[in-house]
């Protein structure tokens, strides 16, 4: 048995989209994807726009289905797991900061940020205190905390999304452009949050178009262009 210390493991991952309403055309988007991310390690996915960075990330989160291969997050086989096992993984193990904030309208920002802790059964006051601390660090003015983030500016929504993603100390994290469109001060805060998460042992997969940010937090780069089905075909 191979001894493995990777928190996130991807093996021979394959994916195609089948468009049933457009003549059943099949678009292969990924083949032979491999990835290993250990505790305390940050791996940056790189490659041109459309190369499949977000697709790979979404498959790790169980948001896109894989056609073949294996994904393991803290030992859970995401490709074959039952829905409730993936839900549990998302609550406890794997956080995801997407580029868009999706929330029930009318829920106050402080609750949106505290929610990942509340679903884990945390004490509501402690969860709100943690949320308040993150919102303050990310420079969301306190007078906005009781309002729904649906009315906030794009940059504010993104920071709320980041606060929410860091509320619980997930052992693994997926970050999709966490520093895009942030000012220098907030960008610095986000990079510090990422460094703190690494220091406590989180395994991180990130997409960073911000090269300086990538150079600072990423330990390695993985070019997903190598997993394009055409590139694979040529190599074989």
């Amino acid at each position, binding site marked *: 048995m191979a001894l493995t210390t990777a928190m996130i493991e991807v093996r021979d991952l394959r994916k195609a989209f089948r468009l049933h309403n457009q003549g059943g055309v099949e678009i292969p988007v990924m083949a032979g994807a491999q990835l290993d991310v250990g505790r305390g390690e940050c791996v940056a996915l790189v490659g041109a726009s459309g190369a499949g960075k977000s697709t790979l990330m979404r498959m790790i989160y169980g948001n896109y289905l894989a056609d073949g291969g294996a994904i393991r997050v803290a030992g859970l086989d995401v490709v074959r797991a039952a829905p*409730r096992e993936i839900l549990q993984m998302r609550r406890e193990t794997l956080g995801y900061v997407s580029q868009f904030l999706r929330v029930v309208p009318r829920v106050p920002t402080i609750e949106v940020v505290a929610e990942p802790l509340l679903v884990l059964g945390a004490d509501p006051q402690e969860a709100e205190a943690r949320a308040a601390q993150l919102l303050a660090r990310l420079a969301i003015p306190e007078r906005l905390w009781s309002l729904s983030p649906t009315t906030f500016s794009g940059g504010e929504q993104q920071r709320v999304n980041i606060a929410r993603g860091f509320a619980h100390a997930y052992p693994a994290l997926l970050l999709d452009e966490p520093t895009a469109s942030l000012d220098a001060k907030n960008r610095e805060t986000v990079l510090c949050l990422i460094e703190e998460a690494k220091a406590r042992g989180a395994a991180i997969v990130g997409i960073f178009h911000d090269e300086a940010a990538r150079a600072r937090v990423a330990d390695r780069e993985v070019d997903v262009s190598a997993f394009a089905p055409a590139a694979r075909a040529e190599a074989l």
Partner: protein
Amino acid sequence: MTPLLQVKDVTRRYGARIGCADVSFDLWPGEVMGIVGESGSGKSTLLNCLAGHLPPDEGEVIFDTRDRGPVDTVTMAEPERRMLGRTDWAFVHQNPRDGLRMAVSAGGNVGERLMAVGARNYGAIRTSALDWLGRVEIAADRIDDRPSAFSGGMQQRLQIARNLVTGPRLVFMDEPTGGLDVSVQARLLDLLRGLVRRMGLSAIIVTHDLAVVRLLADRLMVMKSGQVVETGLTDQVLDDPQHGYTQLLVSSVLQV
């Protein structure tokens, strides 16, 4: 852990026509399952079969009861099934008029369900009714008004209070936000989400509104012509639909 509800090969026909066919799934404690599909796809027939309102022609609906463990509610004696409907189950109708007694006060509507399970102390019943009106954001001074004097959104919130006051473990909802304007819908969604999380409820929600299921449901079942054509995690089914019908459904939603 045992599933709260195990649905096995449930089929219901209307003469030669199929209402729903061979539906199977497990629902776990704390999970919210959404059922989507166009009108006539069989989703309401299925919901009514699961909730004991309509006997299925075939199949089992096994509920994990408090005292006897998993029991098939299809073959269960009628009084026991009725008792489930008043205690561990709740049913929220699309039209609040179907789930409320319009000639009884708001407080009476909530208290009545408590009395049906044996509550007799007037003071305790009224206190509980007031507490629930507060949770669904109906002002205490409206407790003696009849629901006919309420707006549609308030009626729907009252129906939810009436249903949840007995602390059910499974809630069936048929288009709970249908017919409400969008701001009222958001308020109701917020309320339902909070209740699901705080009370650890499981729920099965039938709707044709994909935005509602995205925010409310953990898992999704897509129905077409009485058959389940696709199931999975809600965001996975909506973002990476596999079946042609689901792809059509998702791509037909107007973006706002």
